[in-house]
């Protein structure tokens, strides 16, 4: 090996070593360790014992876990399509040069930098059943007061609404950037050919936004499946487990009940589900989304 070549290897490795150590210790070792934990009975304190697949088997019989999966599926099934369709509508409305447009865009984006904890506290106050602003608004409209986070039938829906508020700006920015890349000539040509506005939107703009939509679907799904902060602060998984989602249950098992092995099995199941779902979405996307050559 030449001196030059050896020096290159040395330089390369000295540049990556700090990162490699950190990522190995905090990003790679834990992945394997979690797998080991998941086949142990491990209370994170006393010496663990090996239990094989017992944790995974127990999961399939655990009614709280099953309801947590169901809540996560419902949450994701509502959050992903509603937030993306709403974001598309808002982005189309924001994609023009009129007065105050900067104010409108900022208003839509500000909640994204508001922390998840602050968002949950804010909505706890807005949706407070007795003194909250939203119930006051409902009363003024002649509608009955609602329980929101205190009502097992509504709590999950309230979480959906709250997280859409917190996340909408993110999706809108992605769509705005994509909309501004739509070639103007294409829209003008379609209009000259007599296409109406809705037709242009449906037949030209939405297909051109395919890559952005695919990214948002994948990204929002991953995030929705990992919902935790807002649930912890707003409802602690209640009332009556109505908002216990998978990661909340994982946290509860690992750090309140100290069932480390069982929690690791939950984490691995979630990881596999995320990988599978992402794979399916990308596969469907690769067949339906067309990346323009422009």
């Amino acid at each position: 090996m030449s001196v030059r070549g050896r020096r290159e290897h040395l330089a390369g490795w000295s540049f990556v070593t700090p990162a490699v150590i950190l990522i190995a210790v905090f990003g790679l070792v834990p992945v394997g360790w979690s797998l080991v934990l998941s086949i142990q009975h491990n209370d994170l304190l006393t010496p663990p014992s090996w239990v094989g697949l017992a944790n995974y088997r127990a999961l399939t019989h655990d009614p709280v876990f099953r309801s947590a999966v169901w809540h996560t599926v419902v949450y994701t099934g509502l959050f992903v399509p509603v937030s993306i369709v709403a974001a598309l509508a808002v982005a189309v409305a924001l994609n023009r040069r009129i007065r105050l447009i900067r104010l409108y865009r900022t208003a839509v984006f500000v909640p994204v930098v508001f922390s998840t904890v602050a968002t949950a506290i804010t909505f706890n106050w807005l949706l407070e059943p007795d003194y909250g602003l939203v119930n006051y608004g409902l009363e003024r409209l002649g509608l009955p007061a609602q329980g929101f986070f205190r009502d097992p039938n509504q709590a999950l829906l309230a979480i959906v609404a709250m997280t859409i508020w917190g996340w909408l700006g993110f999706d809108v920015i992605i769509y705005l950037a994509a909309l501004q890349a739509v070639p103007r000539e294409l829209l003008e040509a379609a209009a000259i050919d007599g296409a109406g506005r809705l037709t242009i939107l449906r037949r030209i703009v939405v297909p051109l936004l395919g890559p952005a939509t695919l990214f948002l679907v994948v990204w929002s799904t991953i995030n929705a499946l990992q919902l935790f902060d807002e649930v912890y602060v707003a409802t602690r998984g209640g009332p009556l487990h109505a908002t216990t989602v998978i990661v909340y249950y994982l946290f509860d098992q690992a750090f309140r009940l100290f069932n480390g092995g069982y929690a690791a099995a939950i984490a691995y199941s979630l990881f596999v589900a995320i990988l599978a779902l992402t794979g399916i979405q990308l596969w469907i996307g690769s067949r339906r989304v067309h990346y323009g050559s422009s």
Partner: protein
Amino acid sequence: MSGPLVQQAPAGRRPPDPAGARRPTDLGTRRRRRLPFSPWHLVLAPTAAVMLLPLVWVVITSIQRPTDALQFPPVLVPHTFHWQNYPDAWRAAPFGDWFVNSAVVASAAVLGNLTVGALAGYAFARIRFLGRGALFIVLLATLMVPQQLLIIPTFIIVRLLGLVDTLPALALPNLVTPFSIFLFRQFFRTLPVDLEDAARIDGASRLKVLTRIVAPLSTPVLATVAVITFLWSWNDFLWPLIVISTDSHMTLQLGLSSFQGAHSTQWTLLMAGTVMTQVPVLALFFLCQRWFVQSVVLSGLK
């Protein structure tokens, strides 16, 4: 400062209209003749109001008298400005400590990602070293791993290091992320290599090339990594919740959550605390809105 959220093509670049020709494609202008303003305001103003209302209501509640917050119908316009909630909240919990902790942890994370991340990103982009391809694939694979899979073993590792309930426990796992390395690598690969080659022929070391030639050209990626890391670290909740138990060691978000636990029905106090914890990052957002938006486009936050 606060530029438009997403840059638009300058209007001047459109070809001039042929005399008298109507522009049928200017969606939205057709009806403008009947209204004194664009009809889109009718959609956008309510949307903006709905998005801002929660924030406005937080601020209003934070300056109400505690008794006013417990009335129905609510007091929509405060009679007096009860600023006292802010010093009251500040005294009720160690907000000062939380602020310092958050700042220290976020700064460490930003510095770590900018240095360690840039070094690794540069090596992946430019230096041909043994094992580079394999290492990069491993790196991409770790990008896919969700935080929840890591936290239990990471907690055990942090406990083995004797760092539970300390600030280093918060900073260490986030000192460099695969995503930062990936962003740096992608950016460095777009830079022309000639300048670097010239400097290398003149005998400059790799490190000198990186700090003297590449870094000054890399403001966009440095800013993006800084913003993403800062926001992630500043707003992170799950990891601090697991690893920190002492009040004075908490970060702002964890502290705010524990403050809520202690004062769950004292809404004026709670809203003052919420405002105090969110103002720093909101101020930063308004100061460098352009970088924030660019970072969002490049990635995903939160």
